[in-house]
């Protein structure tokens, strides 16, 4: 049987993390294909509902990528909104008995394609350790 590999949905903001993903592509940096990038206008737009829907529909982890705090956000403070949303959602997840490490928020600027690749690899190996989300919920 093939080794189990986690599926990750990543919501990347158009201005920073999304551009970093573009740059990673243009610079031909390698990273695993089981990360599905979704580029959104701003990380602050990613509602907790969107993250939970991703988990409900088969993702084992969700990555939210935004601009560096405090001053990089194209819309002034969207990254802080994203931080608060993810922070509260993580607390909520752990109260429900779902590992909060399955959701992660990272600040990645448009030039940091190397960081994006590193974060993705790190996150995937962490999820491989945690196993499928089924394991969390069947306890």
């Amino acid at each position, binding site marked *: 049987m093939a080794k189990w590999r986690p599926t990750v949905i990543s919501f990347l903001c158009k201005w920073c993390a999304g551009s970093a993903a573009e740059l990673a592509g243009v610079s031909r940096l390698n990273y695993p294909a089981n990360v599905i990038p979704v580029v959104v206008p701003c990380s602050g737009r990613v509602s907790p509902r969107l993250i939970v829907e991703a988990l409900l529909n*088969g993702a084992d982890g969700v990555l939210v990528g935004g601009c560096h*705090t405090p001053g990089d956000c194209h819309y002034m403070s969207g990254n802080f909104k994203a931080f608060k*949303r993810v922070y509260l959602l993580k607390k909520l997840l752990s*109260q429900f008995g779902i590992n909060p490490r399955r959701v992660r928020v990272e600040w990645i600027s448009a030039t940091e394609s190397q960081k994006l690749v590193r974060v993705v690899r790190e996150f995937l190996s962490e999820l491989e350790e945690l196993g499928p989300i089924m394991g969390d*919920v069947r306890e």
Partner: protein
Amino acid sequence: MFVSKPTLAIVYGAICGGCDVALVNLGERLAIILENYDILYWPAAVDSKRETLEKVSSIDVSIYMGTLTNSEEVELAKLVRSKSRVLIAYGTCAIYGGIPGLRALINASQTLKEISSTTTTVEEVRLSRVAELPDLLDRVKSLIDVVEPDVIAPGCPPSDSVNETLVDILVDYAKGAKLEGKVFIGDPNSLCSKCERKPPELSKISMPGIRRLHELKLVEDKCFLEQGVLCMGPVTRATCDLPCIKNNLPCIGCSGPALNVEDMGLEMVSVLSSILLVEREKELLEEGLSKELDKIVDLIGLLYRYTLPRSLLIKLKSSGGRNER
């Protein structure tokens, strides 16, 4: 038109009795119901057994109150659905799970273990082996999870205005009017739309931090969120007559989610993130913000007090991430 008086059955799941009291509180209006209907089954008022429900070929109107916590309640719900022309889900428990729905977090055996052998009870309780008890469900359900009702009357308990509308529907129905589709009683908008404390510009609300009620002197006509008190108003359906707000207490979300809000908790997380300390974000940074957010002690108790069984995270727990919705 009905040849004889139409029949009415009032059926319970796990209830506290508040819904019953709300019905009885109708006073004179209750007499109008009694004039128009024959009460077939209502444990609090008439002497009838479950056999009565099983024997009749059909029931005109049934009102279901309470959460579904064991196999008997599920059977009863299915029974009244199959026999009733109109089924009314009455009260938040029947619709979203309510307070008994908080058990959705743990399964049947954990629940029995908790009540019989932990320090929450003083003596060890031995469950009766003599009587045959219905099986506890592993996951608490709301009526809507099991059957489809025709009329939905939210509230914990439903407010006077909801009851007024319900009586009107019942009386019209007894006189031969037809129900048009599914009826959801009450204002579907969020509680803020009715709230007198709301500031002129809703988009400019900013929370100065998170305060508990005893930590501040409340200004009586100012928005709770603007004073730092957690209020579920933004995501709650405005079916009540705002008794809490009028008595200087924040909304706790007993009427369930407003129109277009599927999951109260997640939506409220979004609301809080958008308004908490918006002016001081760049000064506090992630560390300061998380410190403030940590002041919310019990997130589930705050966000899902009345709607836990129907939350997306409970769905995630029971489906294991393989969408069964």
